[in-house]
């Protein structure tokens, strides 16, 4: 069945810009997060998860990783890592929650804010170049394209889509639900946990769900 609107596959190629802002203590990290650009928050959270797509757990965002690895503060690292980017459709909300966690920790542990880290944290930013990869008009065409989609494109549609759509979903589920009317498939795809599976495993799971839908 041909859809009324095609799924437009896009890939994104990212440049990393060095912002010049850095942090050597937890207090400086908080100040940095408060003052850095949205592109910087995006790079160290949404984009960071995508960059480590081959890990099936243990990595959430750059801030948590630095607090653990360079500041040796596992409790704070765990709190920062527990922020689930799927709950955010705006960078401002994510920034506010990061700051709230750091401020809360600083209040409870005032002596730790000025301890020097082993290595500084360097704030960077993402610059995104989008490139169209073609369209799929049917579920079969969608499946065929999905199996050979590069990681950057998967990341674009499956992880960073929320900020673009301003919806709590991904591009694939949005198309399944809004264009094809396949609400159950959309929900199943949206439930795939990107924190505990690799991007390749997520792709395999989506393909299996599409196959199951097609066989009905």
């Amino acid at each position, binding site marked *: 069945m041909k859809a009324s609107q095609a799924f437009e596959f896009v890939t994104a*190629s*990212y*440049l990393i*810009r060095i912002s010049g802002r850095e942090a050597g203590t937890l207090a400086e990290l908080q100040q940095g997060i408060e003052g850095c650009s949205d592109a910087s928050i995006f790079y160290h959270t949404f984009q960071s998860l995508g960059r480590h797509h081959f890990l099936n757990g243990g990595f959430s965002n750059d801030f948590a990783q630095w607090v*653990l*690895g*360079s500041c040796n503060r596992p409790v704070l690292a765990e709190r920062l890592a527990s922020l689930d980017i799927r709950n955010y459709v705006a960078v401002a909300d994510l920034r506010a929650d990061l700051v709230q966690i750091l401020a809360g920790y600083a209040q409870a542990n005032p002596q730790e804010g000025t301890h020097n880290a082993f290595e500084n944290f360097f704030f960077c930013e993402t610059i995104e170049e989008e490139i169209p990869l073609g369209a799929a008009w049917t579920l079969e065409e969608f499946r065929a394209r999905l199996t*050979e989609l590069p990681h950057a494109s998967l990341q674009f549609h499956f992880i960073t889509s929320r900020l673009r759509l301003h919806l709590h979903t991904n591009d694939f589920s949005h198309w399944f639900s809004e264009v094809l009317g396949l609400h159950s498939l959309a929900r199943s795809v949206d439930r795939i946990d990107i924190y505990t599976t690799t991007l390749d495993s997520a792709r395999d799971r989506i393909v299996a769900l599409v196959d199951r839908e097609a066989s009905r």
Partner: protein
Amino acid sequence: MSQSATESRVSRLDDYAHLLGAGEIAELRTLAGRLEGRTIQMINSTSVGGGVAEMLNRIVPLVEELNLAIRWDVITGGDDFFAVTKAFHNALQGGCFDLSDESFQTFLAYSEQNRARLRFDADFTVIHDPQPLALIDSRPAGANAWIWRCHIDLAKPVRRVWDFLAPYIERFDGAIFSSPAFARQLRIPQYLFYPSIDPLSEKNRELEPEVIEGILAEFQIDPHRPVLTQVSRFDRWKDPVGVVRAYQLVKRYFDCQLVLAGGGADDDPEGEAVLSEVREAAGKDPDIHVLSLPPWSALEINALQRASSIILQKSLREGFGLTVTEGLWKKKPVVASAIGGIPVQIIHKQTGMLCHSLEGAAYQIRYLLSNPAIAQKLGEQGHEHVREHFLITRNVRRYLTLFLHFLHRE
């Protein structure tokens, strides 16, 4: 130990498909398609020897294969010019600078000669390192983009040299650094391009088991007992004596061997002294193999890394640490110091183990020798990390994206 024919053969883009996936190669072609008709010029100071020339020798043919017009020009100069640029190079990295004011004139005079000799009409011009910096004086009026690719650490330069070069740098449209820690506050945008390795080069390509066995036999290394290896120059910042001490702590519990392989001892008095210290620390232990290798030992290094149970990089100071990248690519568990560019590559307990002391290094080595399944998983995840971020094809992609960015900015 000579360079083999494999090393000199130029790799084709499709040769990388089995390592990266056909989708990634297709995506590179799509990116390049957006730049159709545009021209690129790379300029550096040498066509052979050194990491920059090695990298350009591989990147330029790959970009050509993407149907983009790319030209690689090399500046020329007399011994006096290269003595000055060598002094600049050291001073920019925090070393001392004791040349006269005349040296700045020498630099400018040769830059003038190169400006007269070279053509500057590309859409995107990339100048590598400080030697050709003053060519920016030849930038034509118009819309083409000039980018400075800095391969060195600029964090603490000698002020006199920096004050001379900074006005040239700030006339570029952007600067590229290998690490945010190497950058400086500049009025132009700064971009991050990680260093990369070529998986098809002699140092990193797959090797047949018999080649590895032959090289182990040549160095009298037992293939049936665990091998710990650190590959690096015999330099105090690489802490080879600390590595021997860590091995000695491990040796109490595991019947293992240590390989310290590197160069830098023949032409460097300090290297020779460090090598002596290492030999003294090693004593008469027949399981410590200290190998001072010539620069053309890529195959031997490859085999030693592939034969290793664990790769070490217990440096006290480090740039990016490409030996870590090489070890990770070979799916080896790596134990390395949490300094410089190493934490970018080693996510602790995910793609390797970080340490802060020789005792810590010894503990992580013992842990990995006791838990081979964990060691294997770290190696596999480390390989994926390199595949995703630190291969030469990724840098081709970064360049294409940067050019697209400048194009859209216009």
